[in-house]
């Protein structure tokens, strides 16, 4: 078994979503050392928070956790979670990367993941893993199947009562833990930095940031996940089991007014998938998808779309002009049907999901002058023949960092970037 020697690695992968995990595995399997830097406390990225995936309806967690575990146990892969990249410098034979490991305020080697600290903590906070729908404690393990299973103390919300430390059977709470900085030398870097969804308030007309029962697609992923915050699909305003649910497609994509003119590629399919899951969870519910074009272009996707129509999910070609709500917090959609030329009309639903588009996570790459395209995604230097190449020699890109795409397309890019990185290193040896 090869252990990575001090802070030197062949390839450094930034991000441990499915793109980063896959490229790290491919490189590791090819016999090279990899270090993954992940800013969150767990690996898994966005994918681990999804309910099920289209069109196979595999539970996302079940197919992601094995990859997370494989990375964790891979003799060639070292993962640093809760660690941020601070600066990257290009040097003659690769890169120098300054990273900072953030304090969990827990002695990681000692922790047995028993959750006693979390149980003891009296401070309840919004849970970012549940995209605000769920609740966590000021000290908590990020989520059920997080890897590693280590709690994190949100120091800024700690009331310093000491309850966690008293409850810990292994005395491993350390309130005075400090960030740890280090510099890693890597021969090549793969940026697998993924995406954010467009913030909910971005399209003013939809008031997505203020209306209680207008939620984002990632929030509804959590509603549908088996370990979701409520344990059942409920709407956030009052816990009602919704029986009239609507999806607004292109809620923040293909829209110049909010500077997201491109198609986010995944929203049609995730909305169809969610609608099918909702139909399964709430057999009596009416589910409507307001859309412009259904872009079911991947393998098996059109058939999936046909299946959804056959299940009775209602697809309405309409633009949604505006969203408001009534006194019961029922969202009201002003819709402009594209099918029969009728006048705009108001439709009231119990719960509305905005199919939010995809934004790049980063505009800067830690001091490295990485070329971005006009939308802020990393630009390929050789888009046709070697899409993983960037303008910087030895710095590769894969997945959504290069532009919106679904999971299979991301996996393809991850393998491709791994191949380029391996051959790049080989060429230098």
């Amino acid at each position: 078994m090869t252990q990575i020697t001090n802070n030197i690695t062949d390839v450094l992968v930034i991000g441990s979503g499915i793109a980063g995990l896959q490229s790290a595995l491919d490189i590791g399997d090819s016999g090279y050392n990899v270090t993954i830097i992940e800013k969150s406390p767990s690996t898994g990225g966005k994918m681990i928070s999804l309910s099920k995936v289209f069109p196979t309806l595999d539970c996302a967690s079940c197919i992601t956790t094995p990859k997370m575990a494989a990375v964790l146990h891979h003799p060639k892969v070292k993962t640093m979670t809760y660690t941020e990249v601070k600066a990257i410098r290009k040097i003659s034979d690769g890169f120098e990367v300054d990273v900072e490991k953030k304090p969990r305020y827990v002695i990681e080697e000692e922790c047995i993941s028993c959750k006693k600290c979390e149980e003891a903590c009296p401070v309840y906070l919004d849970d970012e893993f549940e995209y605000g729908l769920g609740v966590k404690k000021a000290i908590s393990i990020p989520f059920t199947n997080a890897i590693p299973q280590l709690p994190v103390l949100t120091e800024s919300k700690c009331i310093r009562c000491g309850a966690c430390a008293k409850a810990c059977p292994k005395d491993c709470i350390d309130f005075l833990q400090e960030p740890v900085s280090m510099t890693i030398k890597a021969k090549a870097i793969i940026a697998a930095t993924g995406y954010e969804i467009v913030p909910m308030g971005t399209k003013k007309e939809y008031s997505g940031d203020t209306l209680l029962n207008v939620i984002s697609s990632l929030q509804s992923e959590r509603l549908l996940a088996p370990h979701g915050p409520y344990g059942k699909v409920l709407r956030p305003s009052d816990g009602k089991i919704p029986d009239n649910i609507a999806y607004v497609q292109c809620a923040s994509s293909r829209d110049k007014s909010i500077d997201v003119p491109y198609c986010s590629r995944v929203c049609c399919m995730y909305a169809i998938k969610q609608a099918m899951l909702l139909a399964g969870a709430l057999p009596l519910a009416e589910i409507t998808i307001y859309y412009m074009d259904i872009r079911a272009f991947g393998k098996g996707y059109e058939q999936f779309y046909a299946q959804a129509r056959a299940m009775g999910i209602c697809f309405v070609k309409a633009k949604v002009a505006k969203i408001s709500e009534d006194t019961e917090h029922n969202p009201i959609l002003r819709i402009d049907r594209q099918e029969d030329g009728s006048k705009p009309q108001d439709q009231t639903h119990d719960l509305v999901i905005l199919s939010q588009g995809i934004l790049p996570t980063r505009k800067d790459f830690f001091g490295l002058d990485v070329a971005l395209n006009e939308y802020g995604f990393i630009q390929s230097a050789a888009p046709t023949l070697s899409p993983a190449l960037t303008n910087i020699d030895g710095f590769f890109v894969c997945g959504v960092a290069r532009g919106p795409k679904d999971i299979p397309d991301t996996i393809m890019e991850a393998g491709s970037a791994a191949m380029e990185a391996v051959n790049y290193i080989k060429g230098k040896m």
Partner: protein
Amino acid sequence: MTESVRPKILIITTNHSSYPGANAVGQARLAYDSNTYILRVPDPVMFPEEFYLNAFEKGIGGIIIMSSGSDCPYEGAYPRLSARIQNVYNKMKAKNMDINRLKLTTICTVCTESFLKEVANMEQVVSK
């Protein structure tokens, strides 16, 4: 509901389909009776006819074979399996056994509803 002497049901599942399918039932937090015992095999085609008869002899009430059916990754395994089960039925008939105690069915990785249905049906058979 814990009458302790309920007849036991053996559920034979495959690595590829029905074992993950049984997991899916759990992941969805659906419920079925606890007198059910899941065995995992690469493919039930490996069991000779006597295996089933011996199991009944040992006191097993019912056996559900949850195969992968047409999704079976092994060539020719399903036709062989179903032919074999037909022979078992013949032997059961010869012994005057209720052939409903053995059921050959197909369960996929996400067939949670059908899984529950098959179990419920077998519960009825064994409770007789």
